[in-house]
């Protein structure tokens, strides 16, 4: 199906390349025997005798009538004779032939060397080439030469001479004898002598006369004599050299076409005039048409008859078969010596070959066919293969049965291969013909595979040529098989290299690059580029070599040894160049352009690199109220410097002369081997202020140029190099140089910096580094802008990308540096310590109006200057004299508060002291409030003293990370004291959650309440040293000591009232800390602020401060920090709710045991109820009593009795009560009693006397007593809890329900009150 179109396309096989080749190569051979004098005469013209005749052996239109064996007439048109000296009619010398072939290849390489420098061809141009142009012509020459190495083999008859041309000069003595001698000498070819061919051969006698030696009369005489001796037809006279030296100008020298490999000399054939040429022409015409062709025709007839008689016909075939079978016993005679010229087989072969040469292909084919079975049966494989080969060619020339032709070639090829080394070259020839045959039929793919098969059998040089031809076959196939093309080119290149043909190797590899360019088959690319590079280096073309080696450097997929090899070879080549090699965008190490990060300081300055990485919005919110509104800084100096107000610089960032701009960029080593990079630095352009205007024009010009990027790369590169060179002589700015080495696969962030020295416009163009001290790489930043993310948010977000590497440099300004000394990385929660903030001003001019803001005032607050000198922690201890009011004046409380340094201090430290080392030390207090990771942001604002400077103010930003570990955990439970109004019981649970810290509890303070130990002697607990993981519980008594609101609430606004309890086992022999000292109090305030409550106004909550100490400082091992001193911990437990949610507290009071003689009367018992209003508003209270039921009595009776029996051993009375109700004293105890009380019953054991409802009005913070009375009718234990207290808050008009969280009214059930009534005796 695929073959159909090509079948129609191919008209005449003789017109194909193979056809032409066969018509040229398989032609009758004429053996030439001549005397030395003949040669001498010819050499005057610059060639020998055969060369002289050569151009005239080819007849374009000889027009000879021929008859086939079956008397069919046809005419021969094209014809060719091959002339060889008898000495050449033999198998060519192997070494000489090889050398000849090599010369062909080398010669081709010399011609191609010119374009080795050029870029490899583009794929499109390769594809667009039409076939004959693309295929280098030297392939044909090579193939021909290769086939010629097989000439004159014994087993093929077409190289056997058909005729013999005997040439004698007229100068020779006794020419007739010479003719005889020439043929009789032993110098005849072995073919004739050893019987491979018939020695009876057509002879033609030629007498050559040199006209320079005299007239041709004598020659004519000799000719007559010859005619008499050898027959009149076979003799001829040839006169040459008739022309005068150099006088004959020929338009086209017929020899020039055949001797193109030697420099064309003008005297080639210079002595031959037109007559001579015509005479030669006639001679050859006569020889072929009158002698050789008729001779062959006659021989064909004769042989044909002979063959028909012996072999054709059924009888002959049978006989032949039987006879062959009999011969089978004889040993194989592969040498072919058994077939002499007289054997039938040889005769058939000659018949076939002659018929082939006379274009009677049908006859040839039929004879070949006949012969091939014979040879096959004889196992004469070489001859068999030869026959098959000829059959294939005959099929081809007949243009019938393609399959048969191919089958024959295939058989021939494989048979040649089968017989081993002697048939190898024959196989090659066969293959070449086969491939040509396939190519003629457009079966390029198959042809390529034939070439490939040939290449396996040939030495590497020949194989290389074959593989290259195969690659072209793939290219020409339809559709082009480019990958195969590339692969075979590489294979060919490899063979070329093995046979020392480096130029060819480079050429093929380079051509293959056009296929492999841009594909992602890494190993292929690496292989090709690496080898091309290496071979170029061997040829000494280092510049091209390096270009290819650069391609393989970033080969992360290769093994370590390969990577080492690549890198080593690359560096060797670079060293060979003898200079620093400069390259644009070296891929080793790889720079990660998106990681490009520029750090510069305008009015924002940073104390540390961590502060830089903090989000800009965070800083902005922190600085919100501190700094003047943003644009003022810019417009101010722009107004003063109108030169810079042009549009070009509007987007540029601002930096200050003398301050470094840092550029961070990531370098990644893609290899697994370490590489070293040195001298990495930025490339910048700084135009000083005066030049700025001029460069602006240049800049615009450049911008318009940046449109085409492909060629731009090179100019960009040149620009980088030139600006770098400019830098080295320029002192407008200083650059940092960084040296580093990268381990295998390592990525590091490198910070490069540039420090401008003068005002102007600074542009960061790119960077430069040196690999292994030899290769300098330049990289520009601009081209990758599109990919770069904006690192610093707002700072670059809105700006066009090409601009943000430009900086306007302004005059140098003072800049504060700052740090906090001894800020620990990790602290335990509650840790309280003093830190020192150090601010330095290195510049000449001074700054003013220092302000500071801290992001977490709960953790860090500024102290006062006095704090610097006092001793910590003893300064917090309670002292006799009262606190000064200094701190209160300065510190402003509030979450957005901003701390202004007192002008006095800054005046003193920074302004007055202008000499170097201006330092301000300021105390800070750190309190680790809660566990967790805390980022502390501190920003310090300052203004320039010099009003003329371009920036009004700057800010210093500091950032610290703090990790707070959990330490003590404190929980407090408060419940009302059942026996006393306004007193509460406090249970405090403390757990030490540290890993290895022992904490010594020091004191517990309450704010606004009076706290005291439960035990009368003041000891709380046997040991207050809390080991890690240990938990302790403490119990305290709490008493409300707050005065009613009406009394002096203003004065108590600042100072904390409260009381402290020492937790020391030794009691009060250690000094307690003053919780109203400035630091503790400030942190207390911030703690309250954090909880969102103001400090005043809650009577129902209590705040506790637990202070503990640690002797061993195991958290912080920083040197210089006093590790032996005690560490102070303070824990705040704020807003601990007391048990009752009701603002009305009440307590029943009365006798517990009453003896009464019930026989007389019932018993009347008087009770008192004390009611306290703890709220800020007046309250109206109503007490409702209801009569108890008997079941309640009985129940509680039983319960009480059993409880008493259990707990009778206990001495402390208050616990008994708790046992009755429940274990815990909590506010919900009473609810269980309500349900008990509500069960219905008939008999009441006691009744409430007087009114069942009493109403009283209570002012805020006031107490009143209400008398109550019950009547008891029988002895027993009574629970007098069956009453309720209704309360209703009466807010003043202006404060109506201001506090939504508090109830305005409610009902409280009665507290249990047990009364024992005994029968008195």
């Amino acid at each position, binding site marked *: 199906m695929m073959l159909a179109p090509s079948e129609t396309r191919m008209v005449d096989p003789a017109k194909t390349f193979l056809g032409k080749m066969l018509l040229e190569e398989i032609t009758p051979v004429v053996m030439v025997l001549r005397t030395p004098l003949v040669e001498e005469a010819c050499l005057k013209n610059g060639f020998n005798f055969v060369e002289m005749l050569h151009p005239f052996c080819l007849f374009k239109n000889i027009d000879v009538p021929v008859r086939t064996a079956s008397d069919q007439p046809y005419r021969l048109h094209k014809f060719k004779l091959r002339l060889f000296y008898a000495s050449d009619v033999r198998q060519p010398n192997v070494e000489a032939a090889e050398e000849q072939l090599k010369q062909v290849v080398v010669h081709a390489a010399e011609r191609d060397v010119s374009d080795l420098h050029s870029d490899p061809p583009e794929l499109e141009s390769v594809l667009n080439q039409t076939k004959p142009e693309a295929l280098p012509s030297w392939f044909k020459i090579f193939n021909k030469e290769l086939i010629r190495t097989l000439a004159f083999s014994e087993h093929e008859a077409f190289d056997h001479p058909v005729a013999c041309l005997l040439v004698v000069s007229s100068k020779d003595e006794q020419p007739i004898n010479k003719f005889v001698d020439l043929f009789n000498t032993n110098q005849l070819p072995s073919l004739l002598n050893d019987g491979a061919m018939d020695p009876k051969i057509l002879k033609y006698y030629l007498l050559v006369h040199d006209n320079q030696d005299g007239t041709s009369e004598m020659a004519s005489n000799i000719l007559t004599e010859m005619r008499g001796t050898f027959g009149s037809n076979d003799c001829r006279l040839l006169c040459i050299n008739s022309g005068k030296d150099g006088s004959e100008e020929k338009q086209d020298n017929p020899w020039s076409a055949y001797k193109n490999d030697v420099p064309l000399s003008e005297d080639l054939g210079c002595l031959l005039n037109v007559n001579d040429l015509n005479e030669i022409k006639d001679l050859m015409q006569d020889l072929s048409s009158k002698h050789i062709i008729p001779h062959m025709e006659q021989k064909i007839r004769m042989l044909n008859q002979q063959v028909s008689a012996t072999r054709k016909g059924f009888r002959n075939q049978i006989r032949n078969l039987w006879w062959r079978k009999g011969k089978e016993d004889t040993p194989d005679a592969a040498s072919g010596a058994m077939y002499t010229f007289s054997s039938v087989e040889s005769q058939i072969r000659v018949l076939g070959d002659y018929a082939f040469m006379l274009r009677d292909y049908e006859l040839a084919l039929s004879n070949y066919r006949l012969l091939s079975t014979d040879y096959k049966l004889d196992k004469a494989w070489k001859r068999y293969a030869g026959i098959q080969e000829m059959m294939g060619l005959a099929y081809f020339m007949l243009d019938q049965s393609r399959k048969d032709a191919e089958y024959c070639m295939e058989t021939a090829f494989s048979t040649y291969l089968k017989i081993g080394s002697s048939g190898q070259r024959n196989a090659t020839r066969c293959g070449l013909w086969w491939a040509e045959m396939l190519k003629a039929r457009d079966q390029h793919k198959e042809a390529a595979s034939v070439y490939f098969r040939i290449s396996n059998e040939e030495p590497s040089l020949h194989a290389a040529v074959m593989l290259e031809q195969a690659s072209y076959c793939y290219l020409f196939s339809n559709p082009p098989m480019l*990958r195969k093309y590339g*692969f075979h080119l590489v294979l060919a290149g490899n063979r070329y290299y093995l046979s020392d043909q480096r130029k060819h190797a480079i050429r093929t590899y380079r051509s293959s690059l056009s296929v492999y360019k841009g594909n992602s088959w*890494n*190993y292929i690319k690496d292989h090709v580029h690496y080898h091309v590079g290496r071979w170029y280096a061997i040829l000494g073309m280092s510049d091209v070599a390096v270009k290819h080696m650069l391609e393989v450097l970033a080969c992360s997929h290769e*093994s370590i040894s390969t990577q080492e090899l690549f890198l080593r070879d690359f560096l060797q080549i670079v060293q060979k160049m003898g200079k620093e090699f400069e390259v644009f965008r070296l891929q080793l190490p790889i720079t990660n352009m998106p990681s490009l990060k520029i750090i510069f300081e305008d009015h924002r300055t940073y104390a540390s690199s961590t502060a830089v990485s903090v989000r800009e919005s965070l800083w902005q919110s922190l600085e919100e109220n501190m700094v003047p509104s943003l644009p003022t800084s810019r417009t101010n100096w722009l107004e003063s410097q109108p030169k810079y107000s042009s549009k070009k610089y509007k987007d540029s960032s601002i930096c200050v002369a003398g301050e470094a701009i840092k550029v961070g960029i990531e370098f990644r080593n893609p290899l697994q081997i370490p590489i070293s990079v040195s001298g990495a630095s930025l490339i910048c352009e700084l135009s000083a202020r005066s030049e700025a205007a001029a460069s602006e024009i240049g800049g615009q010009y450049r911008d318009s140029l940046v449109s085409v990027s492909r060629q731009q790369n090179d100019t960009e590169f040149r620009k980088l190099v030139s600006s770098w060179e400019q830098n080295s002589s320029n002192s407008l700015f200083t650059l940092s140089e960084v040296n580093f080495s990268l381990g295998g696969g390592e990525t590091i962030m490198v910070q490069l910096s540039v420090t401008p020295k003068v005002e102007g416009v600074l542009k960061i163009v790119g960077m430069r580094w040196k690999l292994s001290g030899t290769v300098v790489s330049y990289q520009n930043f601009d081209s990758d802008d599109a990919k770069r993310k904006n690192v610093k948010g707002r700072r670059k977000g809105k700006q066009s990308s090409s601009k943000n590497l430009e900086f306007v440099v302004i005059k140098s300004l003072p800049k504060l540096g700052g740090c906090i000394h001894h800020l620990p990385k990790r602290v335990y929660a509650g840790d309280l310590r003093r830190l020192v903030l150090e601010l330095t001003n290195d510049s000449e001019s001074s700054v003013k109006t220092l302000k500071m803001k801290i992001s977490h005032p709960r953790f860090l607050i500024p102290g006062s200057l006095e704090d610097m000198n006092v001793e910590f922690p003893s300064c917090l201890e309670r002292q006799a004299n009262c606190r000064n009011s200094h701190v209160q004046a300065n510190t402003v409380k509030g979450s957005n508060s901003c701390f202004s340094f007192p002008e006095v201090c800054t005046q003193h430290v920074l302004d007055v002291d202008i000499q170097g080392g201006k330092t301000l030390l300021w105390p800070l207090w750190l309190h680790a409030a809660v566990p967790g990771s805390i980022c502390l942001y501190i920003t310090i604002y300052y203004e320039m003293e010099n009003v003329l400077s371009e920036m009004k103010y700057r800010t210093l930003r500091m950032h610290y990370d703090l990790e707070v570990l959990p330490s003590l955990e404190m929980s407090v439970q408060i419940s009302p004291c059942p026996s006393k109004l306004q007193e509460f019981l406090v249970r405090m649970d403390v757990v030490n959650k540290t890993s290895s810290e022992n904490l010594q509890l020091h004191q517990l303070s309450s704010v606004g309440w009076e706290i005291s130990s439960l035990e009368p002697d003041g000891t709380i607990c046997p040991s207050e040293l809390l080991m890690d993981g240990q938990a302790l519980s403490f119990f305290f008594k709490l008493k409300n000591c707050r005065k009613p609101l009406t009394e002096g609430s203003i004065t108590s606004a600042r100072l904390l009232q409260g009381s402290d309890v020492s937790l020391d086992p030794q009691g009060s022999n250690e000094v307690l800390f003053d919780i109203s000292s400035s630091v503790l109090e400030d942190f207390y305030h911030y703690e309250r602020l954090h909880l969102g409550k103001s400090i005043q106004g809650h009577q129902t909550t209590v705040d506790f401060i637990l202070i503990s100490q640690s002797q061993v400082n195991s958290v912080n091992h920083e040197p210089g920090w006093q590790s032996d001193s005690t560490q102070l911990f303070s824990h705040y437990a704020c807003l601990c709710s007391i048990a009752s949610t009701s603002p009305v507290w009440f307590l029943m009071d009365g006798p517990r045991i009453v003896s009464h003689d019930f026989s007389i009367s019932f018993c009347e018992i008087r009770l008192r109820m004390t009611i306290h209003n703890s709220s800020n508003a007046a309250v109206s209270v109503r007490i409702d009593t209801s009569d108890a039921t008997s079941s309640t009595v009985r129940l509680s009776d039983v319960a009480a009795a059993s409880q008493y029996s259990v707990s009778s051993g206990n001495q402390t009375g208050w616990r008994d009560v708790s046992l009755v109700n429940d274990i815990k004293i909590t506010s919900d105890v009473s609810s269980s009693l309500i349900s008990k009380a509500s069960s219905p019953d008939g008999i009441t054991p006691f009744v409430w006397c007087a009114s069942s409802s009493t109403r009283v009005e209570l002012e805020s913070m006031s107490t009143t007593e209400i008398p109550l009375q019950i009547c008891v009718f029988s002895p027993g234990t009574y629970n007098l809890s069956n009453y309720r207290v209704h309360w209703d808050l009466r807010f003043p008009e202006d404060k109506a329900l201001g506090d939504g969280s508090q109830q305005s009214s409610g009902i409280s059930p009665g507290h249990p009150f047990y009364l024992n009534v005994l029968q008195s005796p």
Partner: protein
Amino acid sequence: MGSTACFIIVSRNDIPIYEAEVGSAIKKEEATHQHQFILHAALDIVQDLAWTTSAMFLKAVDRFNDLVVSVYVTAGHTRLMLLHDSRNEDGIRSFFQEVHELYIKILLNPLYLPGSRITSSHFDTKVRALARKYL
């Protein structure tokens, strides 16, 4: 298992997205690029053959000396190519079919961009296990 076997998955854009040397022979340094060359060149043959048949398994399409290239073309024109020197066609067919399933699973991963390199180590282990089983 043959002594040499190189398995490669080529995306429809002719980019290798997965490579594995699955042969039992000791891996030689220069073998890798040679294998790539052979497989890359074989793509030309696959290009012709793939459209002449409806079968996914194209059997042995190309050979280089004693190395044979077997190819399996998925519906999305992703080519699974195996370079081998063994003659076990059934085993290769099964190998391809199972690897195809694995590949489909990779494709189902919403985070995998079709045509990008397969970096899943799980896939790699599975493929190598299949190679041991079938080749």
